[in-house]
């Protein structure tokens, strides 16, 4: 039984990690190519979740909702890039932080204005309801496995996009020398909008998929955003590989910490006290991991080629 629970928690950690990767990949791509720190990435996650919930409620199809989440988040991303973000590339990080913080306020309050403060609910599609057997005798939610699968597909897709396509070549060129690819005649403004919309779509996809596990509500993007920050700081800002490794590390460490630490403290404390101490420590664990990683490697595990 203990083994089965262990495997289940490990899979949960993996699922959290995959979700974080979708968030972190966009963040790190945007930072790597445009040098921009985007706090509003969590808002795009929220936009994706709301779009999915609303379209799914109207049409009855989760899959249409998923398409809508990608489209809505990408469109929202492209719009804010053209209206606001574009003016921030030449500014310092402080201005970027503030402007994107302002965007969060606008997005959160605007969403509450349009849809109210009550959470929306999104059902898991019938195809993915149910469970699959795990070794050890327990069963695991099929939907969570599907999220892990989607994350793996996105990771492979991103890898192919960046290493094999013309767009990916331009993205890599943009990361290593911004002025040069402009001088070579690449339309850099459009490239930036495309990269931003791509990152936004990934965040929207993550929001929609998580929306079916939790409720869809204003403010749902912020915890995900901050975890994604921890991920890219650990992985090395600007590195997609770092984002993948960091996301899986954070997802598994966080989930397993919450599962194992109370039991660990239970070995030499009474159960309720162990739950408190272990729980408190578990909630801080990923930040401690981050501090340790930075103490050893201040640029993260996989520093991008150019800081």
């Amino acid at each position: 039984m203990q083994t089965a629970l262990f495997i289940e928690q490990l899979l949960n950690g993996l699922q959290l990690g995959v979700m974080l990767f979708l968030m972190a990949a966009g963040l790190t791509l945007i930072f790597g190519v445009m040098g921009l720190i985007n706090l509003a990435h969590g808002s795009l996650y929220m936009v994706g979740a709301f779009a999915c919930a609303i379209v799914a409620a109207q049409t009855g199809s989760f899959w249409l909702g998923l398409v809508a989440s990608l489209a809505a988040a990408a469109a929202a991303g492209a719009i804010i890039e053209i209206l606001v973000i574009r003016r921030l590339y030449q500014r310092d990080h402080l201005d970027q932080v503030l402007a994107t913080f302002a965007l969060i306020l606008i997005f959160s309050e605007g969403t509450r204005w349009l849809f109210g403060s009550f959470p929306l609910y999104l059902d898991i599609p019938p195809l993915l309801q149910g469970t699959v057997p795990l070794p050890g005798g327990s069963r695991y939610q099929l939907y969570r496995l599907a999220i892990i699968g989607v994350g793996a597909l996105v990771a492979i897709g991103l890898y192919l996009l960046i290493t094999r396509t013309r767009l990916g070549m331009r993205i890599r060129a943009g990361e290593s020398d911004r002025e040069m690819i402009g001088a070579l005649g690449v339309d850099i403004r459009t490239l930036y909008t495309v990269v931003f919309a791509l990152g936004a779509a990934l965040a929207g996809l993550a929001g929609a998929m998580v929306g079916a596990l939790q409720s869809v509500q204003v403010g749902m993007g912020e915890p995900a955003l901050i975890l994604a920050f921890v991920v890219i700081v650990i992985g090395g800002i600007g590195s997609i590989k770092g984002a993948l490794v960091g996301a899986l590390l954070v997802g598994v460490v966080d989930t397993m910490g919450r599962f194992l630490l109370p039991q660990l403290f239970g070995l030499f404390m009474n159960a309720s006290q162990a739950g408190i101490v272990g729980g408190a420590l578990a909630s801080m664990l990923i930040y401690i991991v981050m501090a340790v990683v930075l103490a050893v490697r201040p640029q993260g595990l996989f520093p991008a080629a150019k800081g």
Partner: protein
Amino acid sequence: MSLSRENWISLALLALLLAIPYAAINFGNPFYVTLATRMAILGLAAVGLNVALGLGGLVSFGHAAFFGVGGYIAGIMASHAMSMQPLNFGLFALPASNQMLAIWIVAMLVAGVLAAAIGAISLRTSGVYFIMITLAFAQMTFYFAISWPAYGGEDGLSILVRNQFPGVNTMVPINYFLICFGVLVVALILFALIKNSRFGAALQAARQNEVRVASVGIAPFRIRLVAFIVSGMITALAGALYADLNRFVSPSMLSWHMSGELIVLIILGGVGRLAGPLAGAMLFVMFEFLLGGLTERWQFFLGLLLLGVVLFARGGLIGLVAGRQRHG
């Protein structure tokens, strides 16, 4: 010493802040006294952040940690003093106190130690890393406060009777305002002294050109660390005052929204300016109050305003009135 235009504005702002509660009492609106107290306290918190952000160029997105720690010290000390339980540290125990002066000292000491720990790790990095790491450390304290049930956890902790100050009844709003105002004035003087000291010169120089500072034999890391600690201590003092004002402290004081708001105050007022944080805090509280009275959705308009200031009015309010700073 002749006063510059900027210093005149600072004095005028202080006079205006001092006048608000008296005018409020005269016109029979004592509620505004609390509003003015909020301005003074948030201004103080932002003066603290301004040492790191304005002078040192250290964009800390985690100052809520210090603000909240100050608040929790005030709350914890008050609750222990109320129930006559000493603070138990395992190896030794200290008597709790409901005297503000004692609470302030403890709050600043604890925040100083915390800032030294956070700073020692965070200052190894710079730029975006620094922003995100300070944010992450603040989140760590936030989650700790939520998951540690002894002092209220997610629900927060009430302070039944406001802590005491020698010779003053702190429950009278105007008295409490004057205490906060006095602390603010001291902090502003301290900020001006730091800004014009050799230390302040080195700190600002390290912001402008780290390599040059290092090459004349000053280690930027240590200067920045000291600035970060001083900054955290002032913000913690503001947190203790804030908890006593609301007679309540909760994890929301530690949340990243709080960190963001502190930065917003400075930007609204003007980065690195003596009275920038105060101007920003007064504007912010007034905005929150006026717009909050008109619409529940005031944060939406705050977002628009902030976006406008960042994109089009660099230099903030003080920058508009006092002209651009001579030295970046």
